[in-house]
């Protein structure tokens, strides 16, 4: 069971501490209801650290790394700062969205990762309540960051498309 969770947003990386009772089944109605309810979900996760990207260029670099399952310098710093200070590093289990990204983190930092169903539920909950959970973000800051980063990411995709010929979709 995950002890921490990593949430990658368009504004920055967030690390949460996860407190879950043992033996929770992931797709029960009870769990889904408590995830929807911020007052209950707020007791399941606490924000340890939110590390915003410094600039739009920085954000673009990071989304490119994340989409290629590469652990960026920025992410490495965030994880080291928040997770390595506790001496019992071995007991840490980080909930991540993608198991391949999890292995990349494990390989570069030695932190065990977990992309199980239950981890996905936690990350779904964080995504649902992201604007409330990420301290320092105003109402639609996150959407603005998504808009800017969406344009930047998509534009970069076109720019580096070497063959420039459409791959026809039938």
């Amino acid at each position, binding site marked *: 069971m995950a002890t921490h969770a990593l949430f990658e947003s368009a504004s920055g990386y967030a690390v949460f501490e996860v407190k879950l009772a043992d033996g929770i089944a992931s*797709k029960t109605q009870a769990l889904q209801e408590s995830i929807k309810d911020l007052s209950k979900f707020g007791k399941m996760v606490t924000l340890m650290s939110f590390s915003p990207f410094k600039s739009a260029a920085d954000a673009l670099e990071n989304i490119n790394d994340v989409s290629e399952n590469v652990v960026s310098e920025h992410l490495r710093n965030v994880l080291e700062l928040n997770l390595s200070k506790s001496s019992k590093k071995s007991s840490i289990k980080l909930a991540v969205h993608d198991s391949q990204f999890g292995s990349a983190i494990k390989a570069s930092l030695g932190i065990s990762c977990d992309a199980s169903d239950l981890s996905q539920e936690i990350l779904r909950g964080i995504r649902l309540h992201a604007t409330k959970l990420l301290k320092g973000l105003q109402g639609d800051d996150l959407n603005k960051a998504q808009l800017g980063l969406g*344009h930047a990411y998509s534009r970069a995709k076109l720019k580096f498309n070497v063959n420039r010929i459409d791959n026809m979709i039938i």
Partner: protein
Amino acid sequence: MLVTKNLVPGESVYGEKRISIDGGVEGTKVEYRVWNPFRSKLAAGVLGGLDDIFIKPGAKVLYLGAASGTSVSHVADIVGPDGLVYAVEFSPRSGRDLINMAKKRTNVIPIVEDARLPAKYRMLLSTVDVIFADVAQPDQARIVIHNAESFLKDGGHVVISIKASCIDSTMPPETIFANEVQTLMKSQFQPLEQVTLEPYERDHAMVSAVYQRHKSKQN
């Protein structure tokens, strides 16, 4: 005739007709854009008799298979300034038009990426209320399910356009539609409505379903 209220009055996106009428207050105008069911499957679905497409003002929509963004622009009109459309399109050529359309409509977030790999664009999305899919791929249901697992809220809806010949051109379309619905049901979707897109498209169906994440896979 089907129209949407133009979010950017004075401009057409793809040469569609605009209709201006007097607004509620003296001297004001409201502009609408004609939504052609022969060009947009979602429009065909609405005219084909879907009771609810769940895309409404303020909604957050994940649009898979956004193409050049012509239908997306109408969805953007509907959700309005308080809503958001995450528009995913894999083809770079269409993606270029999509980005240009999104420049004028700031409630559209263009994502040029493969909808099969939602993990690649997970940083760009919030939880959405509705997923609309028109990806015309054999594994379309799987693509939708995969995206829903990460981004669709519990109790959210999907609206899917199914092109029978894209999935299997040897089977009768009705069988294909039924199979796709079965696949959805196995992944915690409860089907709500199904309409054909005749006379606008041949052998197409549009299916809507609600996502019930707490239901176990066996039910």
